[in-house]
C-alpha cells in the first residue's frame, strides 16, 4: 500500500514508535486507571479526540512544508464563538458553520500570506495571528460565554449516524479526505516537495508561494469546522476554550512520526498520535490528575518525539 512505503525497511523499526507508545499507554492505564477500559470511556475518548483530529490533519500538512501554525488554537476559539453568536442570531446551525469556516479561512490565508509572500518565519507569523485571534475572541464575546444557542448545534455532538456518533463520522470523513488529498492528488504530491526539495518544484514550474498559502488556508478552514464541534460539545461559546489546542495538535503530529524537515508526512501516524494524546489525557484524568500535569506530560512526550526524530534522521 502506498502509505506503507513510508515505513522503514528494517523489520525491527517497522512497527512505528507511535503504535508502541499507544500500546504502552493503553496497557498501563488499563491497569491503573479506574474505568479506563470500559466501552463508555473508550467511546468517550474517541469522540473527544475528534476536535483535535480536525486540527492535527491540516497541521500535518503544514509541518510537512517545514512550517508551523501556532494560531490554530486561538482561531478555533474564535470560530467556536462565531458559531455560537451567528447561530444564535440567525437560528441556523449551517449559517453559523459557514461563518466560522469563512473566518478560519481568512486567518489561514493571512498566515499563508505572511509566511509565503512576506517571508516571515512561520512560528513568528502565526504567533502574531494568535494574538490577533485571541484578542478578537475576547472582543466579540466581551469576555463572557455565549449561551442559549439553538439545539441544532448541540445535537451535532450527540447525534449518531447508523449508531456511529456524528463527530466520529466527521473525523473519519476528514481523515479520508486528507488521505485522498495527500496521496492521490497533484496538490498532495507538491506538499511533499515543498518540504523535501522546494527547488525541484520550481524547476517543475509550480509556484511554492501559492501552494503554501493554500496549505495554511486549509488549516484555517478546518479550524472553522472544529469550531462547530467545540461549540456543540460545550453547548456554548467560550472566550478561551480551545486556546492551547494547537500544542496538542503539534504533539499529535510529532508523536505520529511526521518529521519537521525533509517533507515526510504520515497521516495514519497523525491519527494514531491524536488517539495517543487523547488516551494520555483521558488516563491522567481518570487518575484525577489535573489538566496541568496532562499538559506537562504532553510536553515531555513532544520533546521525546522530537529528540527521537532527530536521532532517526541522523541514523
Amino acid at each position: 500500500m502506498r502509505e506503507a512505503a513510508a515505513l522503514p525497511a528494517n523489520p525491527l523499526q517497522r512497527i512505528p514508535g507511535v503504535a508502541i507508545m499507544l500500546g504502552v499507554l493503553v496497557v498501563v492505564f488499563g491497569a491503573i486507571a479506574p474505568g479506563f477500559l470500559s466501552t463508555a470511556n473508550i467511546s468517550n475518548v474517541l469522540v473527544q479526540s475528534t476536535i483535535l483530529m480536525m486540527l492535527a490533519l491540516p497541521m500535518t500538512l503544514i509541518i510537512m512544508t517545514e512550517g508551523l501554525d501556532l494560531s490554530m488554537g486561538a482561531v478555533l476559539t474564535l470560530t467556536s464563538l462565531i458559531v455560537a453568536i451567528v447561530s444564535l442570531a440567525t437560528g441556523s446551525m449551517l449559517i453559523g458553520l459557514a461563518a466560522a469556516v469563512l473566518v478560519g479561512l481568512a486567518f489561514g490565508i493571512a498566515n499563508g500570506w505572511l509566511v509565503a509572500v512576506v517571508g516571515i518565519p512561520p512560528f513568528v507569523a502565526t504567533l502574531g495571528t494568535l494574538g490577533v485571534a485571541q484578542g478578537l475572541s475576547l472582543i466579540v464575546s466581551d469576555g463572557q460565554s455565549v449561551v442559549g444557542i439553538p439545539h441544532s448545534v448541540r445535537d451535532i455532538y450527540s447525534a449518531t449516524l447508523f449508531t456511529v456518533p456524528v463527530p466520529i463520522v466527521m473525523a473519519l470523513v476528514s481523515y479520508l479526505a486528507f488521505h485522498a488529498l495527500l496521496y492521490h492528488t497533484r496538490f498532495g504530491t507538491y506538499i511533499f516537495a515543498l518540504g523535501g526539495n522546494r527547488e525541484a518544484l520550481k524547476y517543475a514550474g509550480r509556484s511554492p508561494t501559492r501552494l503554501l498559502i493554500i496549505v495554511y488556508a486549509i488549516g484555517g478552514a478546518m479550524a472553522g469546522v472544529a469550531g462547530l464541534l467545540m461549540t456543540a460539545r460545550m453547548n456554548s461559546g467560550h472566550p478561551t476554550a480551545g486556546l492551547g489546542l494547537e500544542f496538542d495538535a503539534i504533539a499529535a503530529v510529532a508523536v505520529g512520526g511526521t518529521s519537521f524537515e525533509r517533507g515526510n508526512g504520515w497521516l495514519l501516524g497523525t491519527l494514531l498520535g491524536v488517539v495517543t494524546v487523547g488516551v494520555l489525557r483521558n488516563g491522567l484524568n481518570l487518575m484525577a490528575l489535573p489538566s496541568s500535569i496532562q499538559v506537562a506530560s504532553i510536553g515531555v512526550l513532544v520533546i521525546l518525539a522530537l529528540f527521537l526524530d532527530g536521532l532517526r534522521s541522523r541514523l
Partner: protein
Amino acid sequence: MSMAVQIAEIAHIEPTTAPLFELRGISKEFPGVKALDDVSFSVWPGEVHMLLGENGAGKSSLMKVLCGAYRADSGEFYYKGEKVAIGSAADAQKLGIAVIFQEFSLVPYLDIAQNMFLGREPAGRIPGTIDRRKILGDAKRILDSIGFDIDPSVVVEKLGVAQQQMVEIAKAISQKARILVMDEPTAALSDRESELLFALIARLKADGVAIIYISHRMAEVFAMGDRITVLRDGRRIGEVRPGDASPDQLVRMMVGRTVDMSYPRNFAETPGKIMLEVKGLSAATGISDIDLVVRQGEIVGLCGLVGSGRTEVVRAIFGADEATAGQIIFNGQPTSGGPDQAARLGIALIPESRKTEGLALLRTVGDNLVVSALRKMFPSGLFEPSRAQRAADALVKQLRIATPNTRQTVGLLSGGNQQKVVIGKWLAADAKLFIFDEPTRGIDVGAKSEIFALIDRLVADGAAALMISSEQAEICHVCDRAYVMREGRIVGQLSRAELTEENIVKLGMHHA
C-alpha cells in the same frame, strides 16, 4: 570526408547534416573571473562527447548555461542547425536538454514515478487527482527501457545513490531529453554499478540520444568517449578523438599554461622545526589515514581534485570536524577538541567560502578583525572599543586593506580585501599555523600577488602555512612541498624539485 560522416563513423550512428546541438562563442563572466571564454563545441545524436578540465576550467558553468540556470553573456546556440536561445530552465527543457548534477533534484519522500513526472502528472477522472495506474505504468515503461528493474512505487529516499541516479536519468528520458549532460556520473558508484551505467549509456546512444559526459577518470574517457573536448580557464583548448591522443597529451592540454606569475617567494634553505604533525588521521567526512608534516617557515601545498578530501583534512586538523582516528600533534603536544581549542593554541583556518564561513558580513571590518583575538587582547573580560579600534586600524594599515575606515561593513569590501580581513583576524590572534583553503578564489590578479606576498612574510617571520589550492600553477610557484590527495587519501608527496603541474594532475587523476 565531411565532419558529419567522420563522426558518424566513429560513433556508429546515422550520419546527419547538422549537429544536434551546437555552441558557438559562448561566454559567461562573473565579477573578477571569466568562467567561459568563447567556447564552441557541438554534439551529434548518439554521440558520447567527453568534457575534460581541471577545477575551475568552466565545466560547471557550462552545464549551468546549458540547462538554463545561467544566461550566457554572449554567443549562440544552434539546435539542428537553427539558432535558438536558452533563457530559462523551460527553454532548455523544450530543446530536450537535461542536466544531471551531482546533487540530485529528487524529492526524498515521493516515489520514483512521482519524482519522474513532477509537475506533469497524468490526470485522473476527478480533476486534480493523479491517475495512479497510468503514472506507475508510464514510469515502469521508461524504467524498463533503460534496463532499470524496479517498482516505481518505491520511495526515492530508500534508494542508493546509484539507483537515484538512474531515476534522474529516467526522469530526463520521460521529459523526452535528446541531450543528456552528466556530471561525474560514476563518482559515487561502485565498479559494478558503473558497468550498469555504461550499458545504459550504450542503449541511449543507440536511441540517438547525445550525451555530454564530464569526467576526471581517464579510463572512462578513453573507453566511452567518441570525442573529447578539453577546457582550461574557461576556454576550449582543443578537441581530439580517443584514438588520436594519449592520456599524457590530454593532461598537458588541461594544464599547460604560460602565466606571468610574479609571486615573490623566498624559499627557506634549511627547513625549520616541525610545527604540525598528523598521523593516521581519519574522519567520518571521508578521509582516511592521513599523514602529513608542516615545518616552520614552510608553505606546504595540499592538492587534488574537487572532492578528494582536502577541505575535510584541514577541517579535521582545525577541529571543525571530529576525527575518528589518528593524532594531531602541534608543537610537540597532541591536541584534540574543537576550533576554540585550536585557535587558542595558535592554529588558524582561512576557510574556502570566506563569506559564509570566514566573516560576519553584516558586521564591521573592526569587529571581524578582533573577533578571534578577544581573549588575548582583553584577558580581564572587559572589552575596550577604543583599544580594539586601534588594533584594527593597525592591521588595516599593515595589510593594506582598502576600506575607508574600520567601521565599514565588511560585506561591502572586495573579495581580496575581505580575504585580507580573514587573515588579519588570525594575525591579531597570534596564530602560528595558517591553514588556507583556496586563498585566492574569486580574487583578481593584483590582490592575489599581495596575498602571496603576505603569506611569504608570515612564514619568513616564523609561522607555517598549509595551503589548499586548485590552481596548480600557484602551488608550484609558492609551495616548498605538496601532498596530493585522491578519494580521501594522500597518494603522494612532491618535493620542490618534483613540483610541476603535470605531476600534480597525474597523481590526482590516476584511476587504476
